[in-house]
């Protein structure tokens, strides 16, 4: 651990302030709680919200997993994991099952989360109504009145123009039948995982200074229409490494002629399946 800094970097006063915001957010599922976001030694937009949430809840007994795009070995995930290894000296892991806290950018792991785990999302823009109404004063009023008609109109316009809802990620959800919420830029493929998730989901937006939460087992519904039900992405291909036909796949261009290869975005899930398979072959 680095000398001269408190455990997990933030001072205890700041952690207390953030924990209060987390408690409030958990008590009002999907509601964005303003908090006094600190300036972190990592850039805004690179996970400062998630880092502050993680720093406020992490203890010496925790095991931390950090993923970006589902992978443990992407540069920013490496950098954030290293930040906590240096400032908190906690155990880190790449295994979803072993982690007590998972900080993520843009994915929910394929391995189902269990009760007792906490997943911390990095959020760039917390306000689901922002592209429809740029003014915070106005969007707060809309949330207060549950005035979400504008969002349904937007989705309807998508259907009129493209024949389907043209949102692939950060797909809006309603939490506990009340607050419209951005699930952060996870692919809509991951939205169903949030519904009645046994783990606690915390969302931190550092630059925008907001924290929100989905408590365990809370209903989370992706917006849709009766005649245009919500659907997730799917691939005709299977993962070229582990053969999974049900995970979110990254498409990788492998040569100049544009040939593609599809592999799991969740590296832990993929390597776990490969290990199991080679174990079965050896046996």
């Amino acid at each position, binding site marked *: 651990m680095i000398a001269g*800094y408190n455990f997990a970097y933030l*001072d205890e006063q700041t952690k207390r302030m953030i924990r209060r915001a987390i408690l409030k957010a958990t008590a009002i599922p999907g509601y964005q709680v303003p*908090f*006094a*976001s*600190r*300036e*972190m030694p990592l*850039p*805004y*937009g*690179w996970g*400062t919200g998630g880092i502050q949430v993680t720093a406020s809840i992490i203890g010496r007994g925790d095991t931390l997993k950090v993923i*970006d*795009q*589902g992978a443990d*070995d*992407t*540069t*920013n995930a*490496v*950098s954030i994991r290293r930040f906590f290894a240096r400032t908190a000296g906690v155990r880190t892991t790449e295994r979803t099952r072993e982690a007590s806290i998972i900080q993520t*950018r*843009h994915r929910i792991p*394929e391995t*189902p989360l269990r009760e007792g785990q906490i997943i911390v999302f990095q959020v*760039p823009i917390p306000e689901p109504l922002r592209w429809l109404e740029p003014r*915070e*004063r106005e969007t707060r009023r809309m949330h207060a009145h549950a005035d979400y008609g504008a969002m349904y109109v937007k989705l309807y316009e998508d259907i009129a123009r*493209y024949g*389907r809802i*043209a*949102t*692939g*990620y*950060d797909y809006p959800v309603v939490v506990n039948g009340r607050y419209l919420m951005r699930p952060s830029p*996870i*692919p*809509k*493929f991951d939205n*169903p995982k949030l519904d009645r998730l046994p783990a606690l989901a915390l969302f931190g937006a550092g*630059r925008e*200074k907001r924290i929100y939460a989905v408590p365990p087992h809370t209903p989370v519904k992706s917006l849709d229409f009766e005649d245009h039900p919500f*659907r997730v*992405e*799917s*691939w005709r291909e299977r993962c070229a490494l582990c*053969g*999974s036909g*049900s*995970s*979110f*796949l*990254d*498409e*990788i261009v*492998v040569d100049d002629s544009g040939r593609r*290869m599809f592999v799991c*975005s969740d590296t832990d*899930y993929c390597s776990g399946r490969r290990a199991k398979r080679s174990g079965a072959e050896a046996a």
Partner: protein
Amino acid sequence: MYVAVKGGERAIEAAHELLAQARRGDPQVPELTLQQVSGQLSLAVDRVMAEGSLYDRELAALAIKQARGDLIEAVFLLRAFRTTLPRLAVTRPIETGRMAPRRRISATFKDLPGGQMLGPTFDYTHRLLDFALAAGASAAPEPAGVPAEPGPMPRAPAAVDPAADVNGDARGPARALAFLDAEDLIERPPMTGSDDPPDITRDPLAFPAPRAARLQNLARGDEGFLLALGYSTQRGYGRTHPFAGEIRMGEVEVEIVPEELGFAIVIGEVTVTECDMVNQFAGSATEPARFTRGYGLAFGEGERKAMAMALVDRALRADQLGEDTGAPAQDQEFVLYHSDNVEASGFVQHLKLPHYVDFQSELNLIRRIRAGTPRAVAAEPEPAAAGEED
């Protein structure tokens, strides 16, 4: 090739080594010292202190050196350090009226008590590259055609009686706008709210933001952003008819009142640049017409910043003064949410982080939309895709 799109710890370390080499430059050339940076690139240091919201020349110089001269990166370094510092005390408001100015000009009066004093300014220099400087020789000092700077002003005593604290104290020249105020021709400096100002680094902004919070935000805001916004008001997007009532730059004392003493003590001195802008008048059937004000203040020698800030401050008061609104510089949320260059730089540059999961979703979507046939939709499996069923 699969590994190639992922980064790793070793790649990061190697990149940081390269960065250290690039920062050092040619090892044959002597390394910059912090004294050189703070002494000879002093305006860069001033800007980093202002936008970093931390008055420390040495740390700002270190930040500039470490950031290879990238001032926004240096501001970021300084901010990330500042955020770890405890708040020991709140100072009393600095008294710029008691400043011993090194520069002081008014564009609204030809002459005024205390005189006009150019000080160390780029104004009226001819912007000709000075090749003598390149050769390492100091430029010949320009002939001094301005009134000589007065000798050092007497310092305020270490303890100041708060009761004796009046505007335009004899230690500094009277404020130019005080002459207008004496005739009731200009509004009193608009109140900023309470004696206990908000701290925008400790409390999230809420809207409408009080003026004290707005001024704090502008004071640490990006100079380029404020410059463009201020400029836009001059070109008609929220025009305010500004005159530079007074600009002064110099040292002011910083005082705190320790609880156990009960009176103010001076803890140090900071250089600031202040701009008092006189703007178009407002009045009504019941209120006599008066000029209005805009205010700018920056750490160090930051005249461009202070002037731009004063324009934007005034523009942001349009609502309160009952003027037409709608220009970008008059829009609180637009200005205050986008003024911070550390936030802006981080978020703009986060686009270089991997986004391939989101992009994959978009690819999926656009292919579906293009296919546009019921067959493509029917090919989708049921949404219960998340799991480990195979």
